Structures are given as C-alpha cells and as structure tokens.
C-alpha cells in the first residue's frame, strides 16, 4: 500500500476515530496540559524577558514568540502523544494487536496515527491562536491558514516520534529522542529567537529541521507578511512528509505484519 493511498483508506480514519474515542475521556486534562504549558512559557518570555529588550527589526518578544509558540504547540502535542501513545498502543495494551486481527493493515494504523496527530495539532493550535489573537498579536485573516500548516507540522513530527515508539525496546529510550533530537530542534528552530545571528553552520542545520519552516510559515501568516516564500515553507513540510512517511510504516510492518 503506498503511503498516500493509506491516508484515504476508511480503516485509517477508523484508527483515528478510535484515538478520538479514547481521548474524549480525558479531553479536558489533555487540553489544559497542552495549552497551559506553552502559555506559561509564552507569557514568561514575552512579558518577562520582553520587558528588558526587543528583537529589533523582528519586533517585540511577545510578537516574535507568539506565532513561534503556535508552531511549538503542534510539535509538542504530536511528539508526546505519538511517542508515548504509540508505544503504549503497540506494546502494552494490545490496541494495534487487536486491529491486525481485523483486516487493518499496518500502513492504515500508521496513517490513522498521522491523521490523529494532525487533528490534535489543529485543535491545540487553534486554541493557542485564539489566545494570541485576544492579545492583539494577530494582524491578518491569513492567520487561519496556520491551521493547515499546523496539521502538516503535526503529521511531520508524528513520523519520527512514531518511528521511535515502534523500534525502542523500553519506553525509557524515548527520552533519547526527546533530549537529543526533539529538544534541540525546538530550541534552535526559531521559536524563541531569530536565527540570523547564529553562525552560518548552525543556521544551515536549523534550516534542515522542520520546525524552522513551520514557524516561519506561521509567523508570516499571523503577521500578515505572507509571501511566495511562505508557500515554499509549506512545500518544504510536504516534501519532508513525503520523504519520511514510510519509516513508521516499515517499522510497524516488522512488528505487526505477516
């Protein structure tokens, strides 16, 4: 089954629906955790640090970090649920095991997880978007186009997280992914400070990571500075998904396939 086809199979959407059913039981705590934490960072950096300096041509800290945190909300919600949840559903509670006794292919399970992470990213992202809009930080209706960008970001960050979830021997190994890959990407992805003062090599590395492009796109759409390059950033996200999407598929097929 090719990855694009897996996204439109009915059973992929049913896998996503299963996650929605499970999530509904703890929706409030999930929403609270996924919104409060970025909000605290946002307010602390934006008002706290922002009282001392600005980012010059990039504007105030509040204005700079707001759309950055918007992208980060999608990254966090997708990363943690795909990694922990994916591990649990594969290894501990037999959710996938049950699916493959029914005619559900491993590719449909992975695609269902991508769809689910896209949903979460859009849900939490839109709440955060409302927060920064209420603070007067959104300057264009184009900001609504952040939602499809966040969906792509959710899918893209779900890919390595699910891959790790499907290959690690113990859940503690997921911390390697969080500490060595996810956290550096977040810190140097252009969320908290502009990257133009970094050495060239550091900037080049950042350019190769997905969050940089997601954040650039969100920032341009929120501030109304969207241009053709915004479309390019979105294209970068789509291309990265197309290149990496098979990774969890292959890992899951090794675990569950026949």
């Amino acid at each position, binding site marked *: 089954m090719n990855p694009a086809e897996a996204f439109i199979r009915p*059973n992929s959407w049913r896998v996503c629906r*299963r996650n929605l*059913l*499970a999530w509904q*039981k703890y929706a409030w705590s999930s929403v609270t955790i996924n919104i409060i934490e970025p909000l605290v960072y946002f307010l602390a950096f934006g008002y706290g640090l922002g009282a001392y300096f600005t980012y010059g041509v990039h504007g105030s800290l509040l204005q700079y970090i707001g759309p950055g945190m918007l992208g980060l909300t999608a990254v966090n919600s997708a990363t943690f649920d795909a990694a922990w949840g994916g591990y649990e559903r594969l290894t501990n*509670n037999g959710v996938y*095991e*049950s699916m493959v*006794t029914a005619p559900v292919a491993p590719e449909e399970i992975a695609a269902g997880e991508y769809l689910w992470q896209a949903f979460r990213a859009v849900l939490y992202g839109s709440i955060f978007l409302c927060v920064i809009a209420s603070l007067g930080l959104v300057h264009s209706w184009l900001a609504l186009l952040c939602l499809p960008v966040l969906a792509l970001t959710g899918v893209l960050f779900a890919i390595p997280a699910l891959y790790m979830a499907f290959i690690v021997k113990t859940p503690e190994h997921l911390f390697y992914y969080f500490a060595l890959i996810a956290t550096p990407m977040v810190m140097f992805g252009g969320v908290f400070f502009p990257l133009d003062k970094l050495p060239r090599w550091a900037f080049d590395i950042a350019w190769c990571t997905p969050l940089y492009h997601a954040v650039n796109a969100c920032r341009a759409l929120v501030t109304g500075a969207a241009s053709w390059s915004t479309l390019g950033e979105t294209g970068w996200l789509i291309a990265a998904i197309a290149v990496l999407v098979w990774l969890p598929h292959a890992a899951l097929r090794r675990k569950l396939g026949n």
Partner: protein
Amino acid sequence: MSLNVAVAASELTKRYGPVEAVRGIEFSIRRQECFGFLGVNGAGKTTTMKMVYCRIAKTSGSLHVLGLDASGHAGDIKRRIGVVAQQNALDPELTVIENLMTYAGFFDIARDAARAKADALLRSLSLDGKHDARIKDLSGGMQRRLVIAKALLNDPELLVLDEPTTGLDPQARLMVWEMLSSLRARGLTLVLTTHDMDEAARLCDRLAIMDEGRIFAEGTPHDLIAQYAARDVLELAGGDIIPDDGGLEALIVRREHHGATTYLYNEDNRALLRALAARGIDPARHVARPATLEDVFLNITGRDLAE
C-alpha cells in the same frame, strides 16, 4: 482443495532465526468440526494458530484457509474468520460497547447493524448491562467472553481460539465451554489450542497432538485413546513386580513406568485385577480408572518435564 475443508496445511514450517517453532506439519480441518491442537507450552500451537489467522507468515510449506492461500490473501481471510488470541486484545481506553463498535467498523459493518449485533452478542454472552463498563472493571471471565463476542461480530465462518479458557475459574470455563458447544452445534467451524485434556475431550471432534513443533498423532479422542492407550488403565503405586508371563501379557496392551508407578493399559481392569489375584499379586495401592486423553498425551510426549 475440497469445499468441505476449512483449513489445510502441508509441510507447514515457521522458523524464527535458528529456532524452528513449527516443523513441516500437515493437517486438514473439515468445515463444521471442532479441531483441537493439544500440546504443552512451546509445542508450536500458538505459532500454528497465528499462521492460520494470518498474524504471521509461514516460512515454507502451504497453508489454505477457507480455500484461500494464506500468503497473499490475509485481508480476505481475516474478513471471514474470528480470532480469540491468547492475550485478550481489548482496548483498555474504550468501554465495552466502544470496543465492539470500533472493531466492527474495521470490517465495514454499518453502525446500525453493528450496534444490533453487539447488543445481541452481549445478551447471549451474559454481558447485558455492561455496555458502558471499562475493561479493567470486568472479571477475567467477562473479558474472555467479550473477546469471543468481538470475534463473532463479523459472522465468521471459522473461529480460531488460542487457549480460550486458560486462566479462567471453573465457572467461567464451563460457561465458555457451553458457548463453544452451542456455536459448534450451529455449524461454526472451530479451531482451538489447549493444554487442558478435559477441554479437548469435551469440545473437539478431532485432535492433533503437538510436541516440539511436530504433530505426533491425529484423530478423534476415542481413536487416540484406543491407539495410544487402551480402554482402562491400572496404576500401581507400590512398586509391585508384575511378571510378564503369557497369560498376563494377553491382557496388558501397554506398560509404562514413571518413578515408582507402573501403568498397565488394558481393556478391562476387573479382568486384569482378577488375573493378578490368581497369581497371588494383590496390589496394595492401586488406582483402576478408564484411560483418558491425558494418558495418550503422556504416552506420546513422555512423562518427564521437557524443560
């Protein structure tokens, strides 16, 4: 392959690296019969079952399920069979009814039809009123029944059960047995594994005895007892010396020794005891009983622990 055959395997082999879990087995399961794989842990039963329900692929040989080649038709086979795996694959984050409805969805069963089917199954499996219960709040027996309900949602032609009653208390086990008997009476083909001789004797029309990845014997429980044991068995625990004179040998079909116990398989315990008494042997400690599948099993696989 005949239309009357539900599952057919020949030279079926499964290798995990250097370990050969199933070694070229051959069997044929007829439609509407209950066929059992009897064996100890590690005999290859579960691996065989997983190949039948298309969870794992065979290494070599051939396997047909409901007339379809298991390699290449996994999806089509899964649509037409029900699976009760060894581990209860119930979703702990969903309620009972959500478990059933979600699973039914994977078979493209429309929501209304799935709901009606789920309600009927819960009723018939005495899980009425448990619709909104969480899985962790169900007893072991209830969870097992729910797994069976799940396996029946798609009206399967063949139900595969891997150790359906292991770990259940006697009442729950009896209930599962009754349920499986009634399913068989309705014409469903059942394939199950067990290491419970009583279960095998009660439920199965035919049995295959597995050990170390091979099938050592196959037949009806009655035929297996006739072939590998005898009608009766006299267990002598006292270490009495039984002479092998001609008169006695005519009565004793088979002798087995284990520790200090001698097992004399024969067609009539009373006649054998009379013949022993006539020779002045009056075994102080003996058990006279009909032979069971357990004797067949132990005679084939040996009485010592393999581990």
